[in-house]
């Protein structure tokens, strides 16, 4: 025992060396990890902006607001929306928003006689706007000047054909071409989403109908059911994005409806013509009518704005944000 006692310190020292990390490491882990920083495409879910039940932006007394278009700048977000005054004049008004996307300061008007604006940048950073001409119903294109005001080009981008209505354009720059998605109504048919494209000459040519009202939906049991957007699809907002794999994507938020009340859904495409619906549509499902979605990414957050009609007398702009995980698409 004397020998053992004499050499016990040696054994204990070696044992301490072998187990030294144990006490300090015992506190690590144990939090069921593995779920941090998951890829987030910014499709949903959308948490409504905390506005205490108020609208993000309400129209002037007696007037109305239309569909918004969002643009991310270095200084934050700019919203463009058509505003109808009490006197009935229509003008696109730019609203500057702060970095949080909720503090709005009125700027403008930047273009008169225009509805449903959609703003995009060209390769040089210049601003362009597609809009619906309030007088003719055609889709026009305007270019921003140094003072921020837009000047409309004389020629219409998309003239509605006989017995056609076009609305809600979405302008996107795609490499060396312009893409124009818009709502198309032919005769008494349900609204669909169509695309036209053009080079730098802005001579748009019709490409195809890219999204029609939903059909062929099945429930979880495999039984056929009416799609949430079986009645109409309209008001597209398409962004050309790049994902982490370097793939080019065409992200579309749109309005879908079974009947008169609309919700917001998402679809995407690899070629800009063949769109696939998000499996968990609609992504914004409210008890009020929603229209005119506008999506933007600011840092690690995605924001979605829309026009909502709460009643015949209450309407304006609402919005939501999604900041879960790590953004995986740039646009």
């Amino acid at each position, binding site marked *: 025992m004397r020998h053992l006692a004499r050499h016990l310190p040696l*054994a204990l020292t070696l044992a301490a060396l072998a187990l030294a*990390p144990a006490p300090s490491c015992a506190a690590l882990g144990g939090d069921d*990890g593995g779920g941090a*920083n998951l890829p987030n495409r910014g499709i949903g879910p959308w948490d409504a902006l905390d506005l205490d039940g108020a609208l993000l932006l309400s129209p002037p007394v007696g007037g109305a607001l239309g569909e918004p278009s969002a643009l991310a700048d270095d200084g934050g977000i700019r919203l463009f929306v058509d505003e109808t005054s009490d006197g009935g004049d229509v003008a696109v008004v730019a609203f500057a928003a702060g970095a949080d996307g909720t503090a709005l300061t009125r700027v403008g008007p930047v273009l008169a006689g225009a509805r449903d604006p959609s703003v995009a940048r060209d390769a040089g950073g210049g601003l362009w706007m597609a809009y619906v001409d309030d007088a003719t119903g055609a889709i026009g294109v305007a270019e921003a000047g140094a003072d921020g005001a837009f000047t409309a080009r004389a020629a219409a981008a998309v003239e509605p054909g006989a017995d056609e209505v076009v609305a809600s354009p979405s302008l996107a720059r795609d490499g060396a071409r312009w893409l124009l998605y818009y709502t198309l109504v032919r005769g008494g048919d349900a609204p669909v989403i169509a695309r036209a494209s053009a080079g730098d000459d802005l001579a748009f040519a019709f490409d195809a109908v890219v999204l029609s009202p939903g059909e062929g939906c099945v429930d979880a*049991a495999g039984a056929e059911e009416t799609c949430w957007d079986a009645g109409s699809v309209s008001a597209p907002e398409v962004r050309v994005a790049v994902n*982490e794999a370097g793939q080019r994507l065409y992200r579309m938020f749109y309005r879908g409806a079974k009947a008169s009340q609309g919700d917001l859904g998402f679809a995407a495409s690899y070629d800009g013509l063949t769109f696939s619906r998000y499996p968990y549509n609609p992504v914004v499902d409210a008890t009020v009518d929603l229209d005119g979605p506008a999506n933007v990414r600011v840092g690690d957050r995605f924001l979605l704005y829309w026009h909502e009609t709460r009643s015949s007398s209450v309407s304006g702009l609402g919005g939501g944000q999604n900041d879960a*995980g790590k953004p995986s698409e740039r646009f």
Partner: protein
Amino acid sequence: MTHRVIAGAAALLALAALARPLPARANPVDAFGMSARAVGLAGTYGALTDDFAANYYNPAALASLDDMRLELGYILVDPTLELNGGDLDVDGVNGIQGGLVLPGEVWGHRIGVSVALYLPDDRLTRLRALPERQPRFVLYDNRPQRLVLTTSLALEIVPDVLYIGAGLTYLSDTKGSLDITGQVDFEDADGTDLRSAVDVDFQAVRYPSASILVTPTENLRFSLTYRAPFDLSLDLRLDVHGDIVIGGTTDDPVPLVEDATLAVTSKNANLFSPRQLALGAAWVADDGSWDVAAEVVWQQWSEFRSPTARVTIALDAGSLPLSVPPTAPPGEPGFHDIVVTHLGGEVDLVRTAHVRLIARGGVFYEPSPAPDQRDKTNYVDSDKIGFGLGLGLELSDVTPVFPKPIGLDVSALYIHLPSRTYTKDDPADPVGAYVASGHFAGFATTLHFAF
């Protein structure tokens, strides 16, 4: 000789256990290794094993050992596993490793008996079923998060040439049920009266392995180890039986449906380790001052089943128009078998009568068994390139109390996962494309006493 008697008795007990029909064995050391020496050799250990880690790498080697050994150590592996450059904070592996090796002799043949333990700091085991679409590094989600307790028995068949061995790993399956009975008031919650009972069983399961060690010369060693597959399940069941009534708060409730039932079952099989066959070879110098080893391990990942819970719901509400749509079964993972290659070696840096300092190193390459994830699932994985580096210190005859060597092994481990890009067929896939990458960094220590 006392320990040889103990070993003989233990061997008989182990033989009795082995005589029963058993399923398979596997453990988280598949991923990172067991014992500091094995970690330093990057897992190239089947033909070189001489410690408690033989329980995993090659049980037959236990019969070739001469000394009783008591070993204790620690392993820590910290993962940095990323999607699109963001760390998912996957749980690390850290816990105590150790074991006891008892050599002996039966009817003129050497035997060896051993027990080994890996005791995690954080949790004894984890079973969880993530949503099918949620990305996860599937091989590092649950697999390393478990306790390992193994026992092995080895027998020398041809003296100094041929040894055989077998081992058992003990684990627990979990099966639980919640039974609810009573009545449900269709209109008034106060009229609902339910009674519940919970029944959960942790059922012991055993998983075997077996191996052969051949030493045709003093220098040459071959090993062949079989490890059976392993798949822990978590089965949960909810049964609700009762009447649906109106006026449950009264003395005379009106039954709408008698003997209505709701049965929900969830079967979750996500702690899996594949069937393995490891073939190793080693060359040991005449004086034991250096050795080199190689090992190839076939792993049958094609048997990997979906880790997503299979949920079934059955509702019988009589004439009431209530139904629950069935949930879609999870898709098959489509993994494939792989072959892992290990290389390692050791050399004496210092060797005197009382002190021996050994340097060791190794490398392994493990291709990923996971296919591209082009559809709903996101079972993320990548190839692995692992490096081990270690030092071993042995002190011999330092005191009369410890005439046999006392040693301390310290090893570092680094595993690199090259970037792997996942894309989706559906451009509207909720998760979309992503790039997976990462690495593991860790170390292991083992203190060993020979008696």
